[in-house]
């Protein structure tokens, strides 16, 4: 598996004048990315069914007076925008790690079935115990995601050829099909569950309040933090097991931790916003163009780009058929699926 690397810089290379130059450029790129992200965040607060002006946002945040506009911002727009941002970042980082772990450019949490597993577990929990709080939601999402990850890994890696891209994707597709048909079955058995969960199931960041957001945030924070700490080790893994072992890496331990990180990130995203597809697939490929193959750069870039992308998708979902809105998961799939096809064509030559 070859990544389209512009400047492959080994993680432990001694700093030279050239790599210092590249690193400076990357740092500037990161700064521009953060500015873009911030701009999208502001736009996300401004645009929607009711267009507001920037001054109102400032006042709502720092001089809240309880008017309708201020309420819209603090209770609807702000949680929504923050959720889009963090979910996008989490999914993109999870996708980047999955691609590195499996050394497969087509892998992402949604494609290998982790999102479907988390979704099934959440729907199952709602079905069995009624509408639980988001604190319990998230644990079910983790459980479901973990089981799906184990299943797809075992199924994809059986046989002499090991974990080939095709087998992983096929096992993921079949697993997703199975899990989502079980989800459908449960929804048909219980009209009440269907009502509560339908919009969520298409992938949406709308209609969530701050309490939901803050209850899931710690898990995402831990996931992102551990991902950044592990970034050097993950880069070594992408060189192949033998090389990584030769460099003194305890591969089994790193793989296990990285998998836990993926499940934390993907599971909490699903608990917050439902199964949003293709962000985890597309973003790592986009940022690899700027950030190269070193995960110490790739992961921060992916987080920022993922947040920006999902914010943009959510703005689009709001204004395309104004005053109605689309689930953002549909937007990302319409953009992401053609990209998947393109990748399949490019990377699978045989």
């Amino acid at each position, binding site marked *: 598996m070859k990544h389209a690397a512009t400047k492959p810089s080994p993680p432990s290379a001694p700093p030279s004048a050239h790599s210092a130059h590249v690193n400076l450029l990357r740092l500037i790129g990161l700064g521009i990315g953060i500015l873009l992200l911030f701009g999208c965040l502001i736009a996300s607060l401004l645009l929607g069914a009711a267009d507001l002006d920037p001054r109102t946002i400032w006042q709502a945040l720092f001089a809240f007076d309880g008017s309708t506009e201020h309420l819209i911002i603090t209770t609807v727009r702000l949680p929504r925008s923050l959720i889009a941002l963090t979910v996008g970042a989490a999914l993109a980082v999870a996708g980047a790690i999955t691609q590195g772990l499996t050394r497969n450019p087509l892998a992402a949490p949604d494609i290998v079935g982790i999102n479907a597993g988390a979704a099934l577990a959440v729907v199952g929990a709602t079905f069995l115990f009624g509408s639980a709080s988001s604190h319990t939601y998230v644990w079910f999402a983790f459980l479901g995601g973990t089981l799906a990850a184990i299943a797809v890994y075992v199924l994809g890696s059986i046989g002499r050829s090991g974990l080939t891209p095709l087998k992983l994707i096929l096992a993921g597709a*079949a697993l997703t099909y199975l899990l989502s048909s079980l989800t459908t079955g449960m929804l048909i058995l219980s009209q009440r569950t269907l009502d509560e969960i339908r919009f969520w199931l298409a992938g949406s960041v709308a209609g969530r309040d701050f309490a939901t957001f803050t209850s899931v945030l710690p898990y995402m924070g831990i996931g992102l933090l551990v991902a950044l700490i592990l970034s050097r080790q993950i880069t070594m893994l992408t060189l192949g097991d033998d090389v990584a072992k030769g460099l003194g890496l305890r591969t089994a331990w790193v793989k296990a931790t990285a998998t836990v990180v993926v499940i934390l990130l993907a599971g909490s995203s699903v608990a917050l916003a439902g199964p949003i597809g293709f962000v985890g697939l597309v973003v790592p490929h986009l940022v690899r163009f700027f950030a190269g193959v070193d995960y110490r750069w790739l992961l921060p870039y992916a987080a920022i780009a993922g947040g920006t992308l999902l914010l943009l998708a959510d703005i689009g979902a709001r204004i395309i058929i104004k005053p109605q809105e689309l689930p953002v998961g549909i937007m990302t799939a*319409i953009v992401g699926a053609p990209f998947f096809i393109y990748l399949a064509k490019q990377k699978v030559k045989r």
Partner: protein
Amino acid sequence: MTKSWLVIRSQKSLFSIRLDRRVPWVMLTLAIAIAVVMILSIGYGEYPISPLDVVKTLLGIDTGTADHAFVIYVLRLPRAITALLVGTGLAVSGAILQGLTRNPLAAPEIIGVNAGASLVAVAMIVLLPSFPLVALPVAAFTGALVAALLIYLLAWDNGSAPIRLILVGVGVDALAGAFTSLMITFGNIYDVSQALVWLTGSVYGRNWEHIQALLPWLLVFLPLSFLLSRDLNTLALGDDIAKGLGSKVEWQRGWLLLTSVALAGATVATAGTIGFVGLMAPHLSRQLVGASHEGLLPVAALVGGLIVVLADLLGRSLFAPIELPCGVITAAVGAPYFLYLLYSNRNA
């Protein structure tokens, strides 16, 4: 293993067919099994009718209860027949696709042909509520054909490698699924709930009108597929050998693809996406009668019919009085089967 073949040959016309010796017996057994399950299925429900009464009513003998004829002829028989026909179409479509791509994992539901059909059909239901029922198969067929061509073209890179075909299919499937969800979010709630029931793959509430819309397609394309089955055998040897044997490879492939897509489209238009029948039935049939397509296709047709009729009966009885669409049942059984196939092809 010595194969003993059954050869039927006519002296006068240019007709001859060579079948595996097991085929007639297997088909007879399957037909009996289908009849039994259908009778049970017709008898089962909120208003139970004993199997004996079902048979009597079907044979036109008066059972003494006026309700029986109504319940059976108007409500339950069309549903059971739809299930049978849909299963037949899906199974043959899948068998052709597997033969064509020489890939045991190909099935219309995995590579996005069914998704294309559902997208167009849902669009018709939601955007044009007055769209006539009889024309729905045509619309779904168009969708399936476009999806199939799209997959074929996108996967084309100096030849169509099976792996790329399937991966591109997974992508097309996701794309069509997204647009279908879009339709569902857009539409008027009444049309949408109709489309939803239909989408999950169900034979609920199907009446004679649906059968009338589906039957012509099966009557044309099932016999066509049986006629083409011999070409499938030569194609299965690989393009080079098939060409060497004098086959017009591209023409045959085109006709077979058209047949497969037509069957998939018409059945999806009738009953939505009942998943994994097109995957399972050919494999089960191959175990019963071997891989020669002259025998395989008819047997697969019966196996497919049996699967859907059985799935419908299970869907109604497992959680009665709530009923699960048979698409949920076939997916719950079929997806693990797919994973098992993946496992058995692990060293391919």
